[in-house]
């Protein structure tokens, strides 16, 4: 039994199961409320209608290079330039963004800087300089700071490897499949395939990851739905973890997932999940990150009124120094949040957090998965709506069942070594 309020999970016997089925099938809300009170499971009011107010800033992404050498059809950055002239973020803007993060961090003690783009390694010098600056400030002020980068992998060098290892980066490499499958979706602008070059570049990083972690992110389109083959091969190569994300909204609608594809994706994700369970019970590592992340969130009972920290604890910064709700809203007025000179526009932030609260979303406010999902990626929802609700519910339904199995057989999964 899942009670959405507080994301609470209980094991129940057959008698209670029958009783609840009866109440639910009769839509007996009064009966349900009464039963909850009788069993001391009543609403905790964990999430009310009030938006988050004055959140400390804990995380920023820097579009350190608004340009890219690849021509992926579905790219939210429209092949790197966000629809405007390609440019790099000047160093002084990157430093100013870090200063904003420190100034707005308030009582929080952890910070994260993500380097995105475009292809962030196209502006390597600024990336490295601002990393050093941020680390020095954090050390001096006794704060913890983490760094991450999402890269297409084509420009990776051994120097980058040493640098990421030194600063403990989380490195995410975008890979959509193996060989030709990847090449079809993520070619160079010339049309040439990029897979071979990426694997050649990334192999040394995979071998040396100790401080850094190198993961793979797979964007799923109707053309690359055979997920398990991709997952198995990327794990074999040595990626620390592999995650899948459905392409729901692209400029121009290229390669977006439809309902048939989403159904197929769900089938494949469950297939990967079952492989995860098999390996876990056998004591083997199978780093399917969608599964391990969902399991850990479910175990903690994460319940959220928003799908992510966008516009709250997390902001994106464009090369020209404008603030955005997240990295996907760079150069997009719909997600404009202020600029580095004037700071965060608090009235825009307050309006965003009020309007985007899951209680105000349709059909979310009546959905049992609302506090696990949070309403879906803001950028996708604003541009396309919510085509993936059945997929999200289907996936969560499977993971919730898997959770109870894993909690019984391998509870130590939830308590990894520190």
């Amino acid at each position, binding site marked *: 039994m899942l009670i959405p309020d*507080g994301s609470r*999970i209980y094991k*129940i016997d057959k008698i*209670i199961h029958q009783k609840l089925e009866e109440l639910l099938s009769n839509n007996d809300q009064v009966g349900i409320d009464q039963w909850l009170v009788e069993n001391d499971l009543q609403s905790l009011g964990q999430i009310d209608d009030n938006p988050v107010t004055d959140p400390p800033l804990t995380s920023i992404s820097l579009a350190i290079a608004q340009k890219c050498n690849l021509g992926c059809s579905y790219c939210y950055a429209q092949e790197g330039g966000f629809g405007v002239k390609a440019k790099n973020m000047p160093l002084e803007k990157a430093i100013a963004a870090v200063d904003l993060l420190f100034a707005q961090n308030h009582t929080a003690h952890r910070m994260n800087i993500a380097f995105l783009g475009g292809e962030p390694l196209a502006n390597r010098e600024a990336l490295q300089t601002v990393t050093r600056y941020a680390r020095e400030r954090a050390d001096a002020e006794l704060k913890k700071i983490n760094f991450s980068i999402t890269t297409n992998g084509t420009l990776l060098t051994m120097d980058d490897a040493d640098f990421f290892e030194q600063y403990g980066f989380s490195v995410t490499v975008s890979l959509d499949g193996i060989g030709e499958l990847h090449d079809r979706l993520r070619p160079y602008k010339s049309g040439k395939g990029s897979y071979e070059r990426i694997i050649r570049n990334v192999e040394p990083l995979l071998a040396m990851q100790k401080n850094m972690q190198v993961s793979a992110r797979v964007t799923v389109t109707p053309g690359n739905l055979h997920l398990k083959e991709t997952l198995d091969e990327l794990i074999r190569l040595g990626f620390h973890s592999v995650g899948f994300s459905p392409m729901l909204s692209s400029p121009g609608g290229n390669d977006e997932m439809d309902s048939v594809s989403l159904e197929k994706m769900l089938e494949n994700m469950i297939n990967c999940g079952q492989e995860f369970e098999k390996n876990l019970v056998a004591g083997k590592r199978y780093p399917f990150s969608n599964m391990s992340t969902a399991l850990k969130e479910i175990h903690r*009972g994460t319940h959220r009124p928003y799908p992510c920290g966008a516009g709250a604890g997390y902001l994106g910064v464009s090369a020209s120094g404008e603030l955005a709700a997240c990295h996907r809203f760079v150069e997009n007025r719909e997600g404009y949040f202020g600029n580095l000179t004037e700071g965060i526009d608090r009235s825009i932030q307050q309006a965003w957090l009020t309007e985007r609260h899951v209680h105000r979303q349709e059909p979310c406010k009546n959905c049992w998965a609302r506090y696990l999902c949070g309403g879906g990626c803001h950028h996708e929802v604003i541009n396309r709506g919510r085509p993936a609700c059945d997929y999200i519910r289907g996936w969560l339904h499977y993971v919730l069942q898997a959770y109870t199995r894993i909690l019984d057989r391998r509870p*130590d999964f939830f308590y990894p070594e520190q």
Partner: protein
Amino acid sequence: MKKTSSIEPKNLTAQLHYRGEGNPPSTHPSTAVSNCYPGLEMDFRNVWKHVFEGIELLEYSNLVIGVDPGANEKIQRLISTGIQYELISVDGIPMTAPVTGPFRHAPEMIHDTMALEWSNALAEVLPKAGQFVLCKFQNSNNLREIISMELKVCHFFDVDLNRNGKVVNQRVVIAREMASPGDLTQSLCSPWQNDYRECDCFYWAASRPDFVNVEPGKDGKSKGNNWMQKDRTGTADKKYISDAEDGVRGNPVLVSYQDLFAAWEENLRYIIAGKDVPLNNPLKKVKTGVKKKSK
């Protein structure tokens, strides 16, 4: 025969909010009446006394007040010599902070060191449960003497360990090694006796007056009376007198502990419209000066 519950909480939020059959609301801090510092139902501070294996700390400061009888000689030394030792740092994290400011009734600035509250001070240390961390103890009378030793951090929550000491499962209840039965209730507030009169954080002032007959002055200061004083006429000098004036509890100008034990209802009465209710007419209607709204 006791009914077995057929609803079993599985994940952490379900466990956290679960109330065992027969347990009253006060067994959860969120539904208890009071604070828990020390509070009416449990004194949460007592959880920290045994956070390091081998020693016992004072719950409200960093003083070492006991050691396990079976502990090694170095640990025993923290008590055996009669010298008081204070825990000043754990794993490089300070357990104290410098404080500067005027002290009560002493207008000059003083510079001192205060022990930090344990929940915050140890937040970064608790994830190292089961591991040894470097602890430094300072002689209270000779600040130059520092003793260092590695102590094991106890598990805060009730855990299952494998043979290698690795956590393989955990529940949200507090571990026995942190708080045995009786530990959390051994030092509670006693509201209708001592604490109503002497609560140092004026928690009880939330439900009773404290500073009354107040006259704000032009210099930003105020004059008034302590509600606990015996003279209820309102004609006494407007001077706030507290027990701490002469550092001794029991200033004769104020209602005493004995007065409260014997007859608290007579000595401290209900307040209506800012006045003590007269003893002979406890609930007589009093004009409040508030006009009814006309329809």
